[in-house]
């Protein structure tokens, strides 16, 4: 399936409604990047509703990469004791957009 991307900040209730969710799948990624199906009128209307800023796939991937790299650096800086399960989280892994 082909996808399109936008950046929008989730404000909470009403950001994605059940009506939206029943018409298309929205998937969120780090950096407030949202993936929606391409060529879907309802999805396009949703991007307009949430004041989303369209991004190309490459632009969206770059935003995600920046967030992941920053999270990895923050994790690497943690004391070893905080990295060990169950005390801490695993190191964030790279995300490749479809």
């Amino acid at each position, binding site marked *: 399936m082909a996808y399109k991307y936008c950046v929008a900040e989730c404000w909470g209730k009403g950001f994605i409604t059940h009506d939206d969710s029943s018409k298309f799948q929205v998937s969120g990624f780090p950096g407030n990047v949202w993936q929606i199906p391409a060529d879907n009128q309802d999805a396009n209307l949703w991007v307009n509703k949430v004041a989303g800023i369209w991004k190309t796939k490459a632009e969206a991937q770059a935003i995600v990469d920046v967030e992941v790299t920053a*999270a990895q650096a923050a994790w690497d800086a943690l004391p070893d004791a905080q990295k060990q399960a169950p005390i801490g989280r695993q190191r964030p892994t790279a995300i490749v957009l479809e």
Partner: protein
Amino acid sequence: MTTYYGLYGQKVQYLASDPTDVQIGQVWYNSTSATLKVRAATTSGTWASGGNLNTARYGFGTAGTQTAALGFGGYIGGGAGVNTTTATEAYDGTTWTTVSSMPLARRYLGGCGTQTAALGFGGYVMSAPYKTGQTTAWSGSSWTVVNSMNTARTSLASFGTQTAAIGAGGDNYPPATGRPSNVTESYNGTSWTTVNSLNTARRGLGGAGIQTAGLAFGGYIETPVYQAASESWNGTSWTTTPSLNTGRNRVSGFGTQTIAIALGGYNGAATNSTELWNGTSWTATTNYPTAVDGAGTAGTNTAGLAFGGGTPASPAPSYSTVASQEWTGAGVGQTKTVTVT
């Protein structure tokens, strides 16, 4: 010409706002938003954004329903000694409000009950011996320490009510060996009793149901790591049932023994995978909008709630989100906007 009136014997109402008491099949025109709307039955479950928590966290205890939920404790980051919280928040279907704190900061604890009568038990604390069996009862306004579990542990499955609860499996850490637990304990409102064990010892498993009819699924052990195993509890013993399609640690769930939702978790990375249990098998259903693990949950298959949770690359120190998502299951009335192209 065929008209709506001719077909159904009713006119399409012209209303300034959506009606409050609507039936499946009802159609109306909302003059304020200039949209034609219909109340339709959902064909599959859907997620919709709910209110944001005040404190981002994961691995917390939870209780309640979609419109009256409670979240308590959890991991919030911030460095050694301060990264586990006592904070308790209550949800009214729209807004999360911070209420009275728990007496002991902990994460990966069990929780069950309602927003006005909840139970929190077990969990991981920030000083030796690190694991606790402490049990606390929520009155709707404050926490009271009651009798502890017999086996202190973290990351356990939990379900039931404040006076009839089950805690199953979990993590015995420390020590670093022999971590997965198969211990099941039953709470009668006064004390915990050890009952028949899970067939598969594991930690980070999800749970759903009541004290006499429960479900446990997913989790983690050292080999083969991310668990898909599912077991059904009849009030006396556990029976192995068909597994999840996707094995995962720190999986969240809500519902009953015969119809439940498993969402998110961690299987090398946080996942957005959501599965529906129909009493016989697990099938993939509408994915959670973001990858998440260790999210809080409340409610039922028809009206569920998931909130917070660890997300990929969420900022330090919490590595988690404030976002919540409301689940509406299949066959439920839902207002839809009619789009004409």
